[in-house]
């Protein structure tokens, strides 16, 4: 019985953490390049809606995922160009995009008739029969396994490639990077595009992977949780993923505890992941070292 409950909670924790995981890989990379990407919430919800809309139109949940990722990419491009070329404050751009995305997706959701689609479930024989962890790990929607590849790829890009080295330099000392011959704002836009792509995918996975349909404000602040996860992880990928897992687990508890008969205040349960994020940040933020130029716009010559 306990094993069954545990497996159920774990299973739903992984299911709920996966969308955050995609977005976290993106946000982590963007923040290492020095952009505090607030618009991640907008990227996720747009990705979620676009995925359902595209899946509904084409009948393919996989095409929906793809469309969601591209929608996120477009938001990343808008954000990058507005904050670099038009020199609008990046936080203002981000907040505006978030509000716009929330309103637009709700509006189109009202005015369109969408049918739900969901990507295929992968179930690996033999391994799925391992007690406790078998089902959570080996019976999941297939994008979850894509995430398992994305995490090491992100790490490799940031830590082992020339491009990643330049990203880190841009996030730490843009003036120095500039005189060294790196095009600072281009690197930052590339990082934003990467973030948009995978945040959109994360949102899409939430809609056509985890849930199977779209409802208004379905991301419900998950984008902000991802930002919290990056801070929780002290701008290291391992810590970020740990934060994502923790928030996923808290979310799973919210669903699972009443089901297994534990009576708790339901509002408190709904708030649990957010409270956890707040607590984690207060505890963690003291001993962290963020990229030195995080959130600071770059203009040549101003030192």
């Amino acid at each position: 019985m306990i094993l069954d409950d545990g497996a159920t909670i774990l299973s739903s924790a992984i299911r709920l953490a996966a969308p955050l995981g995609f977005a976290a890989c993106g946000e982590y990379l963007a923040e290492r390049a020095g952009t505090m990407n607030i618009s991640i919430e907008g990227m996720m919800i747009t990705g979620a809606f676009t995925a359902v809309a595209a899946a509904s139109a084409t009948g393919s949940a996989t095409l929906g995922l793809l469309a969601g990722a591209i929608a996120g990419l477009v938001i990343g491009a808008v954000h990058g160009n507005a904050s670099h070329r038009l020199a609008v404050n990046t936080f203002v751009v981000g907040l505006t995009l978030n509000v716009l995305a929330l309103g637009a997706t709700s509006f189109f959701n009202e005015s369109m008739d969408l049918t739900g689609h969901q990507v295929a479930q992968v179930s690996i024989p033999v391994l799925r029969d391992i007690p406790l962890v078998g089902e959570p790990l080996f019976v999941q929607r297939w994008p979850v396994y894509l995430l398992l590849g994305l995490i090491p790829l992100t790490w490799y890009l940031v830590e082992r490639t020339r491009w990643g080295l330049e990203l880190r330099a841009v996030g730490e000392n843009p003036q120095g990077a500039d005189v060294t011959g790196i095009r600072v704002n281009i690197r930052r836009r590339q990082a934003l595009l990467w973030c948009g792509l995978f945040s959109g995918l994360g949102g899409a996975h939430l809609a056509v992977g985890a849930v199977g349909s779209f409802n208004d404000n379905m991301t419900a602040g998950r984008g902000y949780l991802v930002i919290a996860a990056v801070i929780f992880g002290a701008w290291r990928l391992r810590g970020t993923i740990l934060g994502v897992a923790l928030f996923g687990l808290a979310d799973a508890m919210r669903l699972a505890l009443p089901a297994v008969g534990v009576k708790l205040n339901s509002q408190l349960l709904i708030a649990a992941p957010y409270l956890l994020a707040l607590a984690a940040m207060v505890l963690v933020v003291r001993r962290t070292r963020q990229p030195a130029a995080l959130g600071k716009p770059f203009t040549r010559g101003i030192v």
Partner: protein
Amino acid sequence: MTQPPRPPRSAAPAIELRGITKRYGRVVACDGVDLAVRRGEIHGLLGENGAGKSTLMKVLSGLVRPDSGVILRDGVPVDVADPHVAAGIGVAMVHQHFSLVGALTVWENVVLGEGREGRDRCDGGLAPAGGQGAHKGWLAGARGRHGQGRGRLRRDEACADVVRVGERYGITVDPLARVDSLSAGQRQRVEIIKCLRRDPDVIVLDEPTSVLSLAESRDLFAVLRRAVTGDGAARDGAVTGDGDLPAKAVVLISHKLAEILGATDRVTVLRRGRVVTRRATADTDAATLAREMVGREVSLGEEAAALGLTPPILSTGAARDGAAVLEVAGVTVGAPSGVPLLESFTLGLRAGEIVGLYGVEGNGQSALGDVLAGLVVPDRGEVRVAGEAVDLRRPGALHAAGVGVIPEDRHRSGVVLDMSVADNLVMTDLGPVSGRLLVSRRRQLRHAAELAERFAISCPSLDAPLRTLSGGNQQRVVLARELAGSPAVLVAAQPTRGLDVGAIEGMYGELRAAAARGVAVLLVSTELEEVMALSHRIAVISAGRVVGELDPAEADAERLGLLVGGAVGDHAATASALVSGRASTVQAGATGDGR
């Protein structure tokens, strides 16, 4: 992106600037400046602060677009639109303050930003040498497999390359160290290696010795000499086959006469944005250069320190008696990256004396300034004024106790540029000009007018924003405000940085006058000459602690250099210190002539 052909040794100068003009509003930073630098020479660019040296070099490195004028590279006109173009045509600049990324390691910094241009250049300059497998492999790998300059980083090969370039020019540095953990001198070595590894033809160094001890300066000039003669290449077995590593051209920007005289082949003097003179260094002397730089006769006595020459000892070394007015006791300030900024720093000041705190930049002076300005609360230790410990956690406590501070960076913590002169003059002490609730504008203006008169602040109006004043006048505003409250202690951190010679002399006069009135003055400076000219007592700071105290009469450049370098054994002992050596001979000659 233009890459001009590279004739092996053409008659045309390696780099030539013609008629460069740059205006900032009404201020003309460069006015039709011509400068030609040949291969194989170290070219000194001498001028006071604000003469236009740095603007000129920013034009050359693509950070600033000139209003008019052309740049020729080996005789071919080039359009240096941004730093990437500058790198592409083989112009490298060693920046003093902002080009290394502290959170990265040495080797990461060295390979950073080597785009396609950088690699093509290496290809032309170094790779044909063949022979050295690792080196060639690194380049070939980087170029071939990684195309656009993306691709995988090869740590071991990059590290080997850092060591190899270092050996060629006689620079040692640990490629795996984080730049955060290095001293200012070591960071500059990293800058130089980073610069040399790209094999530029023209190297520009902007005031490189401000962060170096004397021994380190001497080493730097030796490295530069090797770079311009191509000597390093000949001694490196692997490259001997090539043998013809083209000689480089070096531009050394400085406002210090001794450096220019000691280390350069030719010199161009700038004054107020115009070229005053250009000639072979050997044909000139300190007195001539000083006159050309400042634009009037300069006695190399009193003013020598302002020009970067060691002055004769002018201050009487009579030690002041009495109790300490300011005592800094065991102050420790930690740093986020581990190495403490200040470690058990202890120093006492008596009334009426000027104590010079001399040291190479980046050894804790900034942290000390911040502690004494109340910006940083130390982890341990205390500050006592007139025997009473000050509660450093209370904002303004030090000011109330009678400590005035001229901060190191006046724009950061000394003034508010967009507020008026009058506002800036009363900002730290509103008591005398305000009632319980309201500031009396009448009293404020009267007070400000008095101060402006007393300290000879020249400004269009007391209501003008401080931004409109010259650097020297801004500094006078800070000085006036800090001395207005009749403090017992005045902390002057790098008080003459960025000022012209006239303003520097004015500042020296004010500091001496303050001491004569009985104020205890702490002069924090990286300028040896300044410290020797003003101090009654010299304390030397290194790695966040006081490593020695000297009477100026017994202090000379050698002994101070030893202390500053943390007495690094024979290395410093043998430092016959190029700079000081030349300076003192020049000095002797000049003062002999003058009197």
